[in-house]
């Protein structure tokens, strides 16, 4: 049977089923439905007085062994940045749902956008990475939300679940039976009798975890450059090596949270690339082109950051690559190809409205598919 639903509801339900225990937030359009549903569904719900407090409270809950979630949009996210750096450095699991809207600054709260990906790429001082996982379909709202939380817990890191206004606010008919079962995360804790070293890493580079409330071992969390014991040390070799190991943990385990969709048309030398809300226009454009006898391949990255080599390998197999995204400069294209993209990489960009399939088709045809 079909249900009338929206992405906010799917994400919230998925996060709770996956084991998220606490939602902390400050309301902001267009993330309000996530806040509203979370208030009804999360075991613990806290209304924070601002977004800095939100991230600090979340960090405290995370240090205490809970899995916290928030949802915000750029103006709120901007306030969270220093605290996200802190949570990254303390290696605290949490999920931040970033619902993109039109910027800069307050921009237009009720207009969607895909304008935050370069910010996410550079939000950590030093240029390190936080996993950024995006949604583009109803099933993604469900599955990627689960993956985001599991990645956060698995790698002891904040994770950004990137979405946008139309993805979380548009209502649609949907068959709930197509949703995969979500089982709650089983957290792993340090169980040894020897002294607990808070940033002692396992073979995957992930530190073992104990909540700050436990009665058996001392636990230290530190945002400043620190050694394995969580002691602020300045630029000692051990402390610097710990900082690098945090990044290696995110990079080296990328396969464990790598999600993408690649529909290959053997006869095509054109590849359409997009993510998030624009991925739907790309899929529609590909369908129309196929009906017209001009099939194209489609590549939808869902794990957007860090960027795996695989993405470059996929794109290098095509004479024409068309990247569509709802921002003016072509942000993800720049992250993939640098300031000047190769001549065979083309862009479709808009602001203030969704890109429509015709615009993508027009660009494809311009380059001879």
């Amino acid at each position, binding site marked *: 049977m*079909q*249900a*009338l*639903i929206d992405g906010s509801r799917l994400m919230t*339900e998925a996060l709770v089923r996956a084991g998220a*225990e*606490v939602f*902390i937030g400050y309301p902001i*359009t267009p993330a309000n439905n996530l806040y509203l549903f979370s208030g*009804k*569904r*999360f*075991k*613990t719900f*806290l209304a924070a007085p*601002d977004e*800095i*407090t939100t991230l*600090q*409270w*979340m*960090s*405290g*809950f*995370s*240090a205490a*062994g*809970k899995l916290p979630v928030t949802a915000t949009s750029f103006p709120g996210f901007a306030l969270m940045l220093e*605290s996200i750096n*802190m949570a990254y450095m*303390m290696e605290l699991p949490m999920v931040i749902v970033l619902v993109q809207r039109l910027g800069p600054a307050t921009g*237009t*709260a*009720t207009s969607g956008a895909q304008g935050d990906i370069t910010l996410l790429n550079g939000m950590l001082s030093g240029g390190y990475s936080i996993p950024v996982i995006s949604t583009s379909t109803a099933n993604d709202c469900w599955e990627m939300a689960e993956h985001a939380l599991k990645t956060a817990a698995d790698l002891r890191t904040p994770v950004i679940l990137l979405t946008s206004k*139309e993805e979380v*606010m*548009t*209502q*649609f*008919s949907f068959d*709930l039976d197509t949703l995969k079962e979500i089982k709650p995360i089983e957290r792993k804790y340090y169980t040894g009798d020897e002294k607990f070293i808070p940033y002692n890493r396992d073979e995957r580079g992930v530190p073992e975890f104990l*909540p*700050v*409330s436990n*009665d058996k071992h*001392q*636990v*230290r*969390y*530190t945002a400043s450059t620190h050694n394995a014991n969580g*002691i*602020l040390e300045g630029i000692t070799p051990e402390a610097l090596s710990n900082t690098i190991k945090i990044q290696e943990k995110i990079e080296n385990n990328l396969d464990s949270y790598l999600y993408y969709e690649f529909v290959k048309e053997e006869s095509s030398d054109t590849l359409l690339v997009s993510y998030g809300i624009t991925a*739907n*226009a790309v*899929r*529609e454009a590909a*369908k129309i082109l196929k009906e017209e006898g001009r099939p194209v391949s489609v590549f939808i990255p869902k794990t957007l950051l860090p960027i795996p080599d695989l993405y470059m390998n996929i794109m290098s197999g095509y004479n024409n690559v068309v990247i569509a995204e709802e921002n003016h400069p072509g942000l993800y294209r720049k992250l993939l190809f640098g300031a000047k993209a190769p001549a065979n990489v083309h862009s479709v960009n808009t602001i203030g409205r*969704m890109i*429509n399939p*015709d615009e993508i088709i027009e660009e494809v045809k311009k380059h001879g598919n």
Partner: protein
Amino acid sequence: METKFINTNTLPFCKGCSHTTISQNTEKALQKLGKSLLDVILVTDIGCLGIIDKAFDTHTVHGLHGRSVALASGVSAGVNNPDKKVIVYIGDGGATIGMQHLLDAAHNGYNMTVVVHNNMLYGMTGGQPSEFTPKGFKTPTLPQGASHKGYDICGLVTEAGASYVSRITGIGDISDQLAEAFSRDGFSLIEVMEICTSYGVKSNPGMKLKSLIREAGIEIKVYADNKPQPYETQEREGLPSLFSSDMLIEKEFPHKLNKPLRLFLSGTAGEGVQAAAEMFIRAGMRCGLNVTKKGSYPVTVGVGFSASHIILSPEPIQYTGAPRPDVIIVTSEDGLKFAQKLIDNATKESLLLIDDSIERPVTKAKIITKTFREHVGGRNAMIMAVFEYLQQADIIPMEDLMKQFMGSKISANKTLKRLIEETFEIEG
């Protein structure tokens, strides 16, 4: 043997600095209270005081400048166990940045004791004044002395609802005063007056802490000693799924659509545009159609336009936009203005259904004017318009739409119900 909370005889502070007094007396106070190491979570701010955490063998958390109280609030609410003592070390600089967090923690009654190390300036960065610098007090970057009196943090958190608040001088044995604050449930704060031996003393030669306090009118006293109202984190078990039965819509009727139908409903906020659109798509779903509904409205919820893009399709819908809708329904001037671009771009295959109170726009679309607003008022004009359109279009049964209408709150409007029954010759 008494528990040793501090693991070193060499604390990382300048000779004579009261930060040492506070750390050593914290240990003594915790000993007096019989606390064990892992009963205590020490959360430290940035500043000289923040480098103390490595000397403590308790749990320690060292975060950002000014945010320690917010972080400690999260720790306290997350741990949710009043037997765990959360202590925050923060300076006057951190308390200036994070004032909101202090007020908020006092207001909520988070279980913690905040120890404000007030040395009246920023020690780590070269002696800049803080908002706590007393009137006349000089610092290296403010040689003329502060022109205003400093914040009264004790008064502020008392007003915000703290259970226990006191201000003391950071000289001698202060373990009893600290123990008093540590022993309270809920939010307590103790402000310890200090003088920075590096910058405060040099900028104010000969000045003694006690006389400075007296001359600045800073009161050394207990500000609040109230019955605690400690915060308790709510953990709600067994909450129902968000997938409620009213979301499920069973197929009941046939439809006559053989391709996607894209509509744009444009009216005024507060006039039921979104409700009419939802009624429409629900009726569509009851015929087994795939649907989407995308709302557009200004930031302020109750004024200006309100519009809804809806799609009904026998095929799955991927792209939810409609740059060229098949049908545009306009029920108000606000709606016309917002739909103008779509009306300009409309082709002769499009249909524009518009209220007859609005001047007919120039367009290639086929225009149908009908009286909605005058008959049912602005509030229900879009509902009537949707009924009108579906009667003409004959794509889903009117009986289906009527069923949706009767299932919605709007059907409580008897006059509207009667008008719909009469106009469209259908029983509710």
